[in-house]
């Protein structure tokens, strides 16, 4: 491929954000819209004040034009995330989180902090979560071996972050290993 070396190993965070933005999210539209066909599917109709489910990219678009209010997904609140954070700090495995929680939470907290209760506190909890999980993955690095390697409940952004050097390290270890019986 003709990509620069740094882009050959994994996707960029922006690309992952794009993929995550295809998820559906609930909004309260402030304008009316007929059922419109987009490339990925038909969404709408938007009839205020009824709620509607639209992709995140569309919700972000409307929100920036001040044409809707975004409803936080079931996991984007302090109770859920705080409970997960406690789980993270007390248990040794990774806690279960929505696969693309990092991307979705960043986008939503960015465009709609007024629609999401306790946005600031959420930012701190998310940051703590990220760091706790990063610390655990670092420990996992010490147990790296050339064979298989599994990190259950690891999320999209985190996988993307460690993929380049984890895979390279495993490849190097494979090279250094000497199969008994070879000449």
């Amino acid at each position, binding site marked *: 491929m003709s990509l620069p070396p740094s882009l050959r190993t994994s996707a960029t965070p922006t690309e992952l954000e794009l993929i995550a933005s295809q998820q559906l999210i609930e909004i309260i539209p402030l304008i009316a819209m007929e059922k419109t066909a987009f490339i990925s599917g038909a969404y709408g109709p938007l009839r205020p004040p009824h709620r509607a489910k639209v992709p995140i990219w569309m919700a972000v678009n409307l929100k920036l034009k001040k044409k809707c209010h975004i409803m936080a997904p079931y996991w984007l609140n302090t109770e859920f995330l705080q409970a997960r954070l406690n789980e993270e700090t007390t248990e040794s495995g990774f806690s279960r989180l929505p696969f693309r929680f990092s991307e979705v939470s960043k986008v939503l907290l960015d465009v709609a902090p007024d629609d999401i209760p306790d946005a600031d506190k959420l930012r701190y909890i998310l940051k703590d979560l990220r760091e706790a999980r990063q610390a655990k993955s670092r420990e996992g*690095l010490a147990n790296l071996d050339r064979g298989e390697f599994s990190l259950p409940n690891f999320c999209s*952004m985190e996988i993307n*972050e*460690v993929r380049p050097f984890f895979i390279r390290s495993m490849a190097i270890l494979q090279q250094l*290993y000497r199969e008994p019986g070879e000449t």
Partner: protein
Amino acid sequence: MDDDYFSIDAILAENQKFQCTFKQEIPDMGHLGGGSERDIRAQSKRQIPIWLAYTIIYSDWADFDIPTAFGLKVRNALKAETRSVRLSNLVGAGGSWYGFGKTTMDILNDEQAKVLSEMLTTTFKGRLIEVIDQAQHFAALGPVGASGNTGDFSQAFREGLDATERDLFTLAQESSKRMRRWHEETERSKR
């Protein structure tokens, strides 16, 4: 560092020399050792590049010793503190200690190779965490440059990285930098 004929890493890793003791006399080949003699006498030692040493050793014209880079002194130093050993000193700037080790391993018999393989893997695993840690730390610093308080140990460690570890360092640093930039980027800055 693979067996791939075309792999640049493998080619560069073979840019090392083995100390070989010739068993027979070989006339007219004195130039191999870089000396000015015309013949190679039996029992004389020469430094032979790896790619040439393969053939010479397999054809049983010479024996070779385990290079100093993997000798007892280095082994003990690694056992004491893996991260303090400067691998770049052992193989020259830009060289790959691990690559050199692999090519050496390929020539050795099973037992010695196993020992060498264990030394290589233990060293690699031991230093890996430090490499990644430093890479992530350096991803945070702005273009203003290295801060003065990273400490002598970190700097010495970075200078002592061999080519393979340097690769990993760059990969990890790039990845961390991208993440950081993404987290700081906001919608307002994009639109």
